[in-house]
């Protein structure tokens, strides 16, 4: 039983990271119908930025964290402006290819700048554990869970209660109609990319104590975040986090109870099953096509 709870908590913590990456997918997808295959790489880059600020320049953890988030938000806007905006409105396949290309580029450049070694960020949560009875919970994992909950609430409030959030939802429904209603669609899309890059950075920095940062971490985790986003139904913010947590728990349980090898495949088997039985996901809307 104790093992089970322990596995559950570490699964939830890992799942929260998947959820945060999936959240980035979902934000961009909701606003622009673009699926950003480079989301994991944005997370990796955010982690490297934080490492530069905290590990190399010796800034305070929180200042470095904020700096990395701000820098990545700008980077997200830049990426949107340079590679995504010119192809909005073209078939989805081209957009997927562009983001795959962007991911390639970011991975290689990060490898060239920061090297290919595993890097570690010293955080206030790195050491120390919380003991509840005989249960031992590491602070770094709890911090991920807490931060995910806070971020998710903030984003939910932002999307449902603010004017800008409403504008984003409108332009995600129908860009042209939103434009006619006076919504500055281009700026809205820009902000969405900034937010999704910022969320990715949070994931990267929170992840840093658990798995180290290296230039391929984004690819590995980004691929795990897809099942999370699909499980939640690609257009839903709470869905992304719930999907992420489910995938994380499934992975960690499969690693503990099933023979070796299942851990890596389990998320994808779940994904394929979900796609087969309920393609719209747990929280997705089912819409019929109008001709």
């Amino acid at each position: 039983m104790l093992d089970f709870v322990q596995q559950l908590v570490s699964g939830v913590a890992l799942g929260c990271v998947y959820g945060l990456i999936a959240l980035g997918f979902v934000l961009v997808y909701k606003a622009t119908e673009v699926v950003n295959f480079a989301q994991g790489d944005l997370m990796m880059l955010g982690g490297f930025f934080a490492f530069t600020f905290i590990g190399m320049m010796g800034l305070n953890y929180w200042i470095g964290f904020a700096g990395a988030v701000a820098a990545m938000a700008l980077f997200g806007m830049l990426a949107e402006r340079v590679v995504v905006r010119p192809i909005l409105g073209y078939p989805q396949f081209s957009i997927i290819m562009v983001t795959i290309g962007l991911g390639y580029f970011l991975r290689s450049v990060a490898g060239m700048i920061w090297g290919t070694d595993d890097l570690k960020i010293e955080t206030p949560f790195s050491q120390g554990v919380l003991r509840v009875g005989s249960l031992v919970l590491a602070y770094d994992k709890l911090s991920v869970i807490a931060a995910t909950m806070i971020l998710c609430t903030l984003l939910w409030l932002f999307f449902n209660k603010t004017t800008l959030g409403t504008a984003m939802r409108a332009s995600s429904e129908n860009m042209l109609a939103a434009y006619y209603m006076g919504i500055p669609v281009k700026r809205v899309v820009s902000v969405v990319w900034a937010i999704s890059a910022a969320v990715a950075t949070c994931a990267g920095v929170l992840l840093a104590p658990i798995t180290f940062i290296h230039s391929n971490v984004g690819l590995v985790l980004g691929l795990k975040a897809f099942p999370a986003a699909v499980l939640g139904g690609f257009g839903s913010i709470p869905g992304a986090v719930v999907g992420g947590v489910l995938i994380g728990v499934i992975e960690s349980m499969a690693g503990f109870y099933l023979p070796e090898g299942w851990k890596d495949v389990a998320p994808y088997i779940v994904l394929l099953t979900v796609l087969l039985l309920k393609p719209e996901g747990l929280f997705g809307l089912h819409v019929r096509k109008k001709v």
Partner: protein
Amino acid sequence: MRFLFKTDYEDDIKLFPHSGYVVTYGVLLALLLIAPYVLSSYLMSQLVFVCIYATVGVALLILTGFTGQASLGHAAFLAIGAYTAAYLQKYNVPFPVYFLAAGLLTGIIGAMVGFPALRLTGIYLVIATISFALIVEEILARWESVTHGNEGMRVKTLSLLGVAVPRDSPTFYYLCLAVLVLTIVGTLNLLRSPTGRAFVAIRDSETAARSMGVNVALYKVKSFAISAAITGFAGVLFAHKLSFISPEMFTLQLSIEFIIVILIGGTFSLHGAVLGAIFIVMIDPFLTYLKDDMPGIIAGVAAAFGAGTATAGNIEAKVAAFASLNGLKGAIYGIIIVLFVLFEPLGLYGRWLKIKLFFQLFPLYKRATFKRQKIYVKSERNR
């Protein structure tokens, strides 16, 4: 300029629209046939890879280019073909048998992947094919009694009707070329048959195709099966060419490379697969060549523009250091993909058509002829 005057449907679907095609492709085939006697062994080896990649490219074009079903899992089909060949070869099964068996098995697995894909479009399909490929990769690494796991498998020299065909012999090249040409001709015939027209109808509008009486589910599964089977055939040749296969050769990276093949070549014509394959196979030696020679050339240019010998030497060292940076190749790959999608969406073959049309219509060529249409209103979610 030549005007093609078509009087009936047979004229419209001819393999060779006019005699010019026969001459051009005849010359091309003749050049390819004498290639082993002219080119160096290194280039010949690259040419074999071009044939294999082009075969996979054609397979992917059937699925992605003509049926509109994106797949990022073709490395898995290639792997299944390659492993089937390697496994059957251990039991002394003759080449023609395991060649066909590999294609058949991959075709069946492709159809099985096609069934779940029926309900999926766009991004979901891409994600599903990625998951399929990752699961296959894991199975290859774990099913040690058949695949030898991560140790990989050695593939013996191909023997065709009792004659050994080493992987760098001209005969092996002719075999790959024959497979490629047969695939292309077969695909051309497929595309001008009712099946091919159904594929294109599904790509352009699934709803419209269904209303016209096309059995969408059947044709999607067919498209998956045919595409997978051709990839399986290519997998057998791939295994023989490399003579050693292991799971880490068939990663997502390879699937992306195959997509790049058709993306760079052009997704609307079979020419694209061949041009893209040439590009992707030749870019590696080209980059190596640049890496070796570029520093010297740049320093030479700098010296010509009046920089001193010391400065020129300095520049040369700096450029050489930059060129040997780890991962520069990946960055260049990334830039190439992005630039092609942004500025040359029709690919290399599209560029060739533009140049041809420019000279045909000179001086009346308009850039807008090839302009892409932007659609903002349609949300893929509501399809």
